[in-house]
């Protein structure tokens, strides 16, 4: 499973890196970015799906 952030949709609400710092980090503008290459380990899959649901801009996608 991989997770990605659409930078055009992100407006820096910061929900992803607040709720799932294992998977996301903030850039200098406070926008969300995936850590590393966005690969999600088995144990973090639920966390990735939570980030998708809690992003107010629908900017996060999980792909199998």
């Amino acid at each position, binding site marked *: 499973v991989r997770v990605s952030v659409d930078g055009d949709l992100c*407006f*820096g*609400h*910061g*929900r992803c*890196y*607040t709720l799932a710092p294992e998977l996301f980090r*903030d850039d*200098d*503008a*406070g926008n969300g970015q995936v850590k590393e290459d966005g690969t999600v380990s088995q144990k973090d899959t639920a966390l990735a799906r*939570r980030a998708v*649901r*809690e*992003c*107010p*801009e629908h900017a996060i996608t999980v792909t199998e």
Partner: protein
Amino acid sequence: MTDSYAPPASLSFTALPVADDRTTAYRLLHERGPIVQLEGGGFAVVTRRDVEYVLRHPELFSSRMAFAGVGSPLPMVPIEFDPPEHTRYRRLLQPFFGPRPILALRDKVTALVAELIDGFIDSSRCDFVADMAVPLPAEVFLAFFGLPLRDRDRLIGWKQAISGPAVVNGRTTPPAEAANAGVELHAYLISHLEQRRAEPGGEGVLAELLAGPSGDQLTDSEILGMSFQFVLAGLDTVTSALGNAFAILVTRPDLRQRIVDDPEGVPDVVEELLRLDGPVFVVPRVSVEDVELGGVPIPAGSRLFVAVSAANRDPSSYEHPDDVDLHRERAHVAFGVGAHRCIGSHLARLELRAVFEEWHRWIPHYRLIAGTEPRAPWPHGLVGVGSLPLEFPPRGGTR
């Protein structure tokens, strides 16, 4: 326009029972939604889907003419601008309001909360609104901008005079009292800006904006417009969010106990109470061209009232929308979405969290003083209980 089009049922915001029964008020809006024609003119946008659509399309729904009734002598930065100017402002301001710089304020904010609690804890009672929810955000603003804390009560006075029913009643010119307070607040900010320029250095946003790299800097007018917006957008909102949250907490010993037992879970409580009873009833927009929304034709130049609080109770988006549920894992739109999402959201969350934690550390048990009923003044620019008289056992005591 098609033959099947029927005009949406109209209602008036002022007639809604927002003061003491917001659950009914939001339900009435949803029953008449998704787009509600307003008796005073304009349209309310009430479903989460349509709210998000309007806020994400500034090219169709502009902020530029939407705040004329507020009483700022200068355009407020960045709330009164559309992209691309808005984009530049956000880029210059976002570094001050991002989660990391805001987190650096945490100890300071916690200390301010503790000091306010110290001021009333021995009397075993307080008005949570007057004694905590009003002064705290004013103090945080002054600390954040590097202004003297002793100016707190003057700042609160100006802010009270300026805010009011502006947005909700669709007023397009400010009343004289608000305009005067606006001029005084501007004069105050200008004098501090000039002082900072004459004596560079010091802490806070004003000093840092002036010391920033030359090139694409904000002008003095832009800094003033931004400061003015902060005072209007960053004080009453936190006041109202705090008052509304504690009006719920005082009725819910189970939630209070959770906060005491699990401080790590406080952010979930903050988010859910923002969703359930956030301070922003509507944000204004003006349609740029003829457009259809929720099946309703909206003529160019119409005033739109984007009801984020109603969207947060949208039954098609949230199960049992009127209940507190700390496990929703659903986004809310209390801070808006799109380019204008609240830039102060991280600071607001920090303030709310600090009060939730610190208050319950010192005062885990409290109740409404008998005979009082929290009411939100209505109509008003924001939804927030006006007073919340609480009583609690003496320091160190138990119920």
